[in-house]
């Protein structure tokens, strides 16, 4: 391999991961402006650049700087090692997911055809499930190591919630693997390329519903943010955190949202493909990336939209929904997909 090949190998997973990180300030801004829109108030609209208000985009940068300059506190009786480790576990588990999601077709550059995916591994989907499941360690350990009963309660809630909803999510996802015949995410996309009716969201609508709802629960977003429930638990698992350690939790939430959106798009909305438009070459590669970004952006906005629309679940409601509604629905979807595949419709 020449030096250029090595650069490509390094850049392929780095592009979506860095992209997701750079998206975080934009998302915090979109979240607050979205909240403002829904609550009939302006939201942050003053902090700009050099006298230009830039719709308040400067606020996002100011908030990021604030994380660096605040005092970094470790409580006296906290377990310092785990307390420091916890936010980075959450951050890591959120970031690595993007390295196996295909974010475009192929890009022909300098006589090479570069597949736009970090690593096309045969168990791509399982890799994302496995890594997303790890974030619960960060949350539970943050809660436990803080030596604060509210933090601990948040950690407990998160553990119970993630285990319950992971089950529904993987069962719903199994329907997609059944129709694609593979766990490789590039093949999942390829199986949906033919027409818009092959997008899994249509034949497996309930699977899509269960998967998306579970994704909200896995990322601890409203209406499933019981782990931080500010009205009951102060801040839940991150009550004691400040400065950049809190910033890491905060960023991880948005990165996890981005990965979840990209995963939903790949599983149920044809990934980077457009059913009626297949440009080739360089243009095709660029268009496919834009299509993936647009679809992912739509789901990111949905995450924000839901947050400012729905109230938080109560704990027993959360458990009832997960075990008595979503899981049976996911199994029904699996059966339905099996029938479709067996009869040759899919």
């Amino acid at each position: 391999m020449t030096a250029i090949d090595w650069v490509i190998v390094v850049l392929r997973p780095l592009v979506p991961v860095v992209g997701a990180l750079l998206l975080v300030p934009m998302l915090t801004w979109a979240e607050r402006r979205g909240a403002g829109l829904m609550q009939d108030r302006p939201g942050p609209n003053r902090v700009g650049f050099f006298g230009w208000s830039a719709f308040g985009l400067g606020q996002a940068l100011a908030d990021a700087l604030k994380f660096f300059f605040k005092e970094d506190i470790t409580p006296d009786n906290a377990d310092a090692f785990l307390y420091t480790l916890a936010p980075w576990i959450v951050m890591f588990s959120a970031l690595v997911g993007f390295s196996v999601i295909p974010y475009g077709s192929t890009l022909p550059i300098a006589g090479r055809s570069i597949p736009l995916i970090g690593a096309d591994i045969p168990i791509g989907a399982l890799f994302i499930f496995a890594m997303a499941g790890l974030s619960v360690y960060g949350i539970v350990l943050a809660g436990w190591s803080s030596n604060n009963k509210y933090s601990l309660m948040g950690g407990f809630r998160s553990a119970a919630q993630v285990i319950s909803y992971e089950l529904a999510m993987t069962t719903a996802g199994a329907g997609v693997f059944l129709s694609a015949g593979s766990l490789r995410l590039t093949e999942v996309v390829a199986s949906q390329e033919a027409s818009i009716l092959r997008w899994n969201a249509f034949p497996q609508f309930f699977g899509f519903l269960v998967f998306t709802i579970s994704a909200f629960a896995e990322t601890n977003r409203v209406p499933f943010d019981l782990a931080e429930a500010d009205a009951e638990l102060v801040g839940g698992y991150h009550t004691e955190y400040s400065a950049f350690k809190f910033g890491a939790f905060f960023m991880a939430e948005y990165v996890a949202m981005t990965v979840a959106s990209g995963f939903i798009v790949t599983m149920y909305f044809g990934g980077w493909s457009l059913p009626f438009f297949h440009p080739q070459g360089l243009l095709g590669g660029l268009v496919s990336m834009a299509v993936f970004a647009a679809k992912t952006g739509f789901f990111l906005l949905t995450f924000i939209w839901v947050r400012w629309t729905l109230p938080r679940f109560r704990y027993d409601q959360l458990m009832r929904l997960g075990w008595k509604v979503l899981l049976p629905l996911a199994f029904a979807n699996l059966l339905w997909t099996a029938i479709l595949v067996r009869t040759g419709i899919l």
Partner: protein
Amino acid sequence: MSGARLVFDLAGAVAIVFAGIMVVHRNPIKSLLAVVVSFFAIAVGFVMLSAPFLGAIQVIVYAGAILVLFLFVTMLLNLDTESASSDRRPFQRGLALLGIVVFAAILLSAVRRSGSIVGPSGEPPATGEIEPLARALFSQAALPFEAVSILLLASLTGAYLLMRREPPAKTGSAENRP
């Protein structure tokens, strides 16, 4: 020594070291975390043996679900660090040592009989790994597979029955507790 072999051996060493930490660490939470790291290393070992599916399942099921449950319970019980280590139990220690020696002997003889030590084959990860596994699980191994499922279901029901309390007088607080 190839790169794959190096990673495999390193993962094996990490798995053993952290299993050791699990046994000797005084803090039950840290012990559990050592098991998590050890299981991770085993998952890496599976991947290096061209079985990425097993590796992923190892992480999802053991590290991602079962050990989270253990962690949950250990935190709930709030085991005291001091009381866990005060009891020295000399008799059991001797027995444990004997157990280690016997187990090591069995392992060694098994390795010697098979003639070779398992290592990474260097082959690319098998793409069609999941299908043969599923076929074997649902055809040849269908009976033991179902038997284990029924056993698990029975123990689950048993555990529920043992833990079941009389329905509380309408306070409404019991079911909100995690």
